[in-house]
């Protein structure tokens, strides 16, 4: 589990100014959070599955989890 990546994503959620900062200088902000090169590539490529995996080593999160099925089938 990557604590730096998690802290980075939580901070950007809680502080919209950081999102603007990220847009202006992606690498600069990610360097401030000590993200590894691999993590930076994942974040820049919007690799959601990769980010999911990096943040959760306990289990594979189902990508879109549940899908609706016909009610009669259940």
């Amino acid at each position, binding site marked *: 589990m990557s604590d730096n990546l998690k802290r980075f994503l939580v901070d*950007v959620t809680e502080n919209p100014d950081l999102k603007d900062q990220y847009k202006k200088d992606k690498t600069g902000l990610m360097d401030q959070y000590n993200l590894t090169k691999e993590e930076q590539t994942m974040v820049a490529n919007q690799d959601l599955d990769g980010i999911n995996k990096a943040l959760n080593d306990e289990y594979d999160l189902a990508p879109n*989890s549940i*899908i609706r099925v016909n009610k009669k089938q259940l």
Partner: protein
Amino acid sequence: MENKGYLYVVGTGLNTLNHITQEAKRHIAQSEHVFHLVPDPLGLSLLKSLNSNLHYLGDCYALTTDRIAAYQLMVKRVMTQLTTAHKVCVVFYGHPGIFVSPSHALIQQAKEQGYVAQMLPGISAEDCLFSDLGIDPASAGCQSYEASYFLLNQVTCNVQAPLILWQLGVLGDFAGERLTCDPKALELLQQKLGKVYPPQHPVTLYEAATLSLYEPRIETLPLAKLTEFNFSQRSTLFIPACSDVVRDESIYLELKKHQLKELNNV
């Protein structure tokens, strides 16, 4: 008589840290057991911080041969836990009752067995779509269908109202086994839509941002190029109305006459 126990089914929204409701957080924190199927990693961290007694339902997929069996297993697990616990909470992403089969089955079974069962609303993909695409269903109404259901049934499509199609990522799924969009089904969907919309009519692939860092994915193509979209498990399709409504003159005049008469009687 004392209640047998409580079941709460709650949603996290799509971007959990921003969307989860206070009510959902309280139920998660106050339950003895929390079952969850939340795909966003920050959402999972939040759940962990609220309650240490978490049970992941995602492994039900690996333990069964198809999704229908997986959902039945999820329902069974929660119902079994409910027999020994006072309060159980089940967490799904988005709105827990929108395009989620086991949530409704759970509420129904729990009520039938004498438990107090309640589903709480959450922010759905459609709510995000209304915000991000600037759509107000008050303007022209709105139709919302599961894409395979729309394709496989003789649905009367109202071209005077926008159309929202869900689950493009598993289009053509009959048996709860597909995890990708069947290209043939997409071709047939394009043909079906082509019978009522012109080929140049815009269609929009929409994916709400699940992390605040990102913008929503919004891609628009003419209907004739629908098959060029690269749909993911998160994709929803939005098709705007293609013709204006015509006023129903007879009703309009009758109501107007009635209201004028009322005014004159005052």
